[in-house]
């Protein structure tokens, strides 16, 4: 692989990693903090993409960002409502919302399964204009995404150390304790999922604008990809302060994209992405369990060996 090709691989991984790391940070909030595996992530990512693209196509690229975040927040609110107020299992609540969002997303795109942003202004083309003639020329995707990531990491570091943030973290840890601190865990779950899904929406919005189109399948498999990144990040930088761990999430997203991009260069077909992420997630979650079980397994194997020898 020549140096310029390598650079291009790094560039793509950086851009995609930064954009997707927003979804990873969303799962950092819902999966790591609230202990809720939010399966509406795929649909919510697409929702953010669709809303962002439609608003940008209408000529309001800057407005597209808060619009996508607000849409994500609404989606998170409904997921949270289903699991806290209507007694629906949290995994099922995510699946239900995810299914419903498919129709919503097509409706948002006026009945079509995609929105084209070709020759339309997006936050990226705006930045491209600003960067023209500076040393960062051509880096508009990375710059916009980096700004978003820095803002979100700063926000999470602040938010998760406030009283409300502490309560959200405790909700996933020990809901009894939240209740005995006179805080309603229903409230913390709703707030947590709203914020998380706003971030997922933002991630989808940036993804659509960076590739200048939104389509109905843009978010498919996102939850697994983001979980894989999250687990990589948690392995690399899973201890320490909230800031360290949040940065770890961004690093995890980048490493995941880098590995994937290199694999693509080595002639792995693009459609393998989701299988790779599935395997990573399955392994990352299974390994600690297997490690724990290993003494029992090895003892059983040894026992079988001796039993055989005895015969």
């Amino acid at each position, binding site marked *: 692989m020549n140096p310029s090709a390598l650079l291009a691989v790094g560039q793509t991984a950086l851009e995609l990693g930064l954009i997707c790391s927003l979804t990873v940070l969303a799962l950092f909030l819902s999966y790591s903090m609230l202990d809720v595996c939010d399966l509406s992530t795929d649909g919510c990512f697409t929702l953010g993409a669709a809303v962002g693209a439609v608003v940008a196509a209408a000529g309001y690229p800057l407005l597209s960002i808060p619009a996508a975040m607000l849409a994500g927040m609404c989606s998170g609110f409904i997921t949270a409502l289903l699991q806290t107020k209507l007694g629906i299992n949290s995994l099922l609540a995510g699946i239900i919302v995810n299914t419903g969002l498919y129709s919503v997303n097509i409706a948002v795109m006026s009945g079509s399964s995609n929105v084209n942003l070709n020759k339309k202004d997006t936050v990226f083309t705006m930045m491209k204009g600003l960067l023209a003639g500076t040393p960062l020329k051509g880096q508009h995707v990375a710059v916009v995404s980096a700004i978003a990531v820095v803002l979100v990491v700063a926000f999470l570091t602040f938010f998760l*150390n*406030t*009283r*409300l943030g*502490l*309560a959200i*973290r*405790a909700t*996933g*840890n*020990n809901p*009894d*304790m*939240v*209740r*005995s*601190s*006179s*805080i*309603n*865990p229903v409230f913390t779950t709703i707030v947590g999922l709203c914020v998380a899904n706003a971030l997922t929406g933002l991630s989808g919005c940036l993804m659509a604008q960076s590739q200048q189109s939104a389509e109905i399948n843009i978010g498919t498999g996102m939850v697994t990809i983001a979980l894989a990144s999250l687990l990589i990040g948690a392995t690399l930088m899973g201890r320490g302060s909230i800031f360290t761990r949040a940065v770890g999430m961004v690093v995890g997203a980048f490493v995941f994209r880098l590995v994937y991009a290199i694999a693509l260069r080595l002639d792995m077909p693009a459609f393998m992405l989701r299988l790779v992420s599935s395997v990573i997630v399955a392994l990352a979650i299974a390994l600690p369990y297997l490690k724990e079980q290993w003494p029992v397994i090895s003892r059983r194997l040894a026992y079988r060996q001796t039993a055989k020898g005895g015969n």
Partner: protein
Amino acid sequence: MLKITNSSKTFNPGTVNEKRAITGLSLHLAPGDFVTIIGSNGAGKSTLFNAICGDFLTDAGTIVLDGRDITFTPAFKRAKVIGRLFQDPMRGSAPGMTIEENLALAAGSGGWFSHMRAGDKKRFRDRLALLDMGLEDRMKQPVGLLSGGQRQALTLLMATMNPPKLLLLDEHTAALDPGTAEKVLKLTRDIVSEHKITTMMVTHNMNQALELGNRTLMMDRGGIVLDIRGKEREGLTVDDLLEKFKANAGRAMNNDRILLS
């Protein structure tokens, strides 16, 4: 302070598993009362605590705490004025968060977006030092690293950080080794007498039941069968207590974990 009137709770009504956990129970505690509670297995001691805390709503009767009717108040709102410790030391704190973060959450001062201040940390450190367990130097460590005794002591601090109107102790020292149990018990006594908190404590230790507090309740089959205080309680021995129980409940105390000495 606490006035429970004619409260009842039946679990799984109308099924073969029907369990009448509390039956028409009435109880009146004066401010500053320290009540020890003993009773047979399944007498309804923990159910009574759960009812007071609002884990479920009672089927009948009213609960009034400090002049406020809390019969239908949700559990998390009652927690503002009720502190509670369980037998399981793991239930009271969040293992993935640091000691100071746990304390900050329990202290509950400031608005939703307030941060821990240097003053708060100093206050936490001073409180932790009272435990004499060296926790004041480990404030940035996750609570999951503490031993059961340390966690229970921390939970006691958390529950009394803002002195509650009522403190419920459900065998909170039963799962600890004797030395630690003694320490946590002494701490409980100190905190309760310092803030004059009205306290109810379930125990299996009959001596403890007579030694601690100013009043002893005996429960059986969902009701209070014996309520001794004042002169009657002074000089009472464990044998007297068991005799009284038998006379009032109509059967001997049946508790497989009871400690007679």
